[in-house]
């Protein structure tokens, strides 16, 4: 397996953490991983992205120039990174707030209304984990069980109460894909 994933969105949408959790889960499953953030004077509402590579082989460059998967949480991210997708690459887009269609016709597209699902769950903070569910449902990049372990390892102390919400969000993402796409 060799996946090169660009995850991008507004600051605050949780793309960095999404990338970290997927990387950690893949590492626990014995994969080679790298996580490279955009960094700088960024803030909530600004743009953020990270490059995540998950591979069976040692990773040469951590910089992605051709992605196999793009996660676009907002419209600027789709516009900026759509061209990096390989032919037959997979696009996950947050259809709640992206009001345009992807211009590429040679890719697979999964539209997930993250904000609507999050509203139902009662928190906008977990749209990243809904997306994690969608990603896992389509690509099986990591197992659900490992992701649950990662939640438990990272959400400790006062954050432990969020474990259930994260798992529930991920499940919602998986269910949305199962109910709306043939996979």
């Amino acid at each position, binding site marked *: 397996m060799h996946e090169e994933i660009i995850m991008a969105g507004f600051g605050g949408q949780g793309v960095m953490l999404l990338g*970290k959790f997927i*990387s950690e889960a893949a*590492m626990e499953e014995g994969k080679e991983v*790298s996580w490279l953030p955009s*960094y700088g004077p960024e803030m909530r509402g600004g743009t953020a992205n990270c490059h995540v590579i998950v591979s069976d082989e040692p990773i*040469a*460059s*951590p*910089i992605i120039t051709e992605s196999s998967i793009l996660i676009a949480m907002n419209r600027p991210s789709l516009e900026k990174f759509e061209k990096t997708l390989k032919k037959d690459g997979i696009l996950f887009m947050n259809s709640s707030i992206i009001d345009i269609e992807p211009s590429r016709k040679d890719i697979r597209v999964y539209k997930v209304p993250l904000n609507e699902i999050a509203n139902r769950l009662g928190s906008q903070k977990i749209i990243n984990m809904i997306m994690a569910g969608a990603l896992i449902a389509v690509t099986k990049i990591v197992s659900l069980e490992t992701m649950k372990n990662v939640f438990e390892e990272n959400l400790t102390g006062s954050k432990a109460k969020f474990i259930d919400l994260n798992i529930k969000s991920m499940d919602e993402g998986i269910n949305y894909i199962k109910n709306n796409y043939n996979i």
Partner: protein
Amino acid sequence: MGKKILMKGNEAVAEAAIRAGCKYFFGYPITPQNEIPEYMSRELPKRGGVYLQAEAEFAAANMLYGAAGSGVRVMTSSSSPGISLMAEGISYMIGAQLPCVIVNMVRGGPGLGNIAPAQSDYMQAVKGMCHGDVHLIVLAPSSVQEAVDLMYDAFDMADLYRNPVLLLGDGMIGQMMEPVEFKESTNKNLPPKTWATTGTRNSPDGKRRIINSLSIEPEDLENLNIEIQKKYKTIVEKEIRYEEYKMSKDLDIIFASYGTTSRIVKYVIKKLEEEGIKAGLIRPITLWPFPEKIFENWAENSKAKFFLTVEMSAGQMIEDVKLSINGKKPVYFYGRTGGMVPEPKEIIDYAKSLLKK
């Protein structure tokens, strides 16, 4: 070795330093290395050490001087402009033969520049850090794991040679996360620090120690220089490190690259291979001492048409590559500056254009 954990380069370097026995950290914040002082400020006091944020980088360098004089393991970290400010203190430490570890997570220059990754401080690190006939041992990691492993070695080398050691990373090494494993501690048997100012009650001969970088008499200063240069000769003999990647006699191209850029070059080599072009890479891990012989050997014993040095600079390491090869093969350069990272396609296109020459 412990469990693999996913960690940012900066944090991993800080953790490695603590495990290597670093007890004092002095520094001043600057992006893209802020996670090092942040981690140190949180962890070092819990583990028997002291974290102190200096009022500026030159103060930090002089705090290092003082603390190193007492024989404990000390370090600082900064990024390009901050390292420039430390230069005077670093020369004093070399003059006083004090061990310390300095981390430079290089950012784009000149001036305040920006915070993106760059390799534009190569010359400063290996040749012109500061006044006097001086060298720092310069280690250049290309992954988070290597940065961790080199931190332990950096402290050992600093103590062994009583000279500052510089870990030269870049913003990308500092910011990226990769799985790492940590050794519990360094394990080298090092000579006791009988020179340290630990008080007359603690010194083996009951006499006081003086640590100084001023030698007014030219004869004395020349003797100090001779002693330092003798040390440097030993370092050149014993400490050179490099990686050879896909090197063989029948290559078309030999790449030279270090740190982050070398990883991009490895990807380029795989891509060229798919097109039937054979290329290999010599990756210096010690930038000083520079692995001259390996470059010379391959220049003499390879069918390669040329060497191609790739850097995130306007061309700095290429001078050492040229000196090592000494005219035996052409040496070309590809680089980006200002925090721009060269893309594989640019390097591939340039390499192919050179093959057609």
